[in-house]
């Protein structure tokens, strides 16, 4: 299936873009996505943390992705 990845901060630099389609075998959890992503972009392994949000909420590793999901990649935040 294909999900849509939306990148912010350093994730945008690593992926060289803000949004991208990403193919992954079904079924796939957030953890599977994280593994596939760090496989493709090893730079993600160097980050302090890597989280994912769907529907404007953080999602746990075991969250199952659906075709067409918009997944926001959340590298370490630094507001304030």
């Amino acid at each position, binding site marked *: 299936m294909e999900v849509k990845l*939306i990148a*912010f*901060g*350093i994730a945008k*630099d690593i992926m060289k873009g803000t949004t991208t389609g990403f193919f992954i075998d079904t079924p796939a959890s957030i953890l599977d996505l994280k593994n596939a992503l760090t496989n493709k972009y090893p730079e993600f392994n*160097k*980050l*302090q943390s890597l989280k994912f*949000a769907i529907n*404007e*909420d*953080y999602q746990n590793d075991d969250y199952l992705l659906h075709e067409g999901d918009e997944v*926001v990649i*959340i*590298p*370490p*935040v*630094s*507001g*304030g």
Partner: protein
Amino acid sequence: MIDIQLSEHPLAEKACYDAVSDPSAGGMVVFVGTVRNQTKGKKVVRLEFESFVPMAKKEMLKIAEYVSHQWDTLHVSIHHRVGSLEVGEVPVIIAVSAPHRKAAFEACQYAIDTLKETVPIWKKEIFEDGEVWVAAHP
């Protein structure tokens, strides 16, 4: 009352005060973040803040709601700026009013600590010879 703002325009301390003022408040505690002129001895030219806006607002609201339930507070105001900020400018203001000051101190400190951990806002420090996403790497 809860007052959340994510703005591209300069923040105003007075707006946060006014949002939390209350005749039954014994006091309010305000945290004002400022852009520092250096990081580990390196001169900062400016900071650029970007945000996943709808989620950032939602997470700021979660913090304010949690704080309101966890402490005996009256009002919570969280204003955050995005865009390009010069040294000395204000990226964040958090104001909390409460009948008693201890709750206001604890709630305000919890709010800024949590904001820095959960709200999807990223800042890039611009130096004279480069730039870096803050806190991205261990």
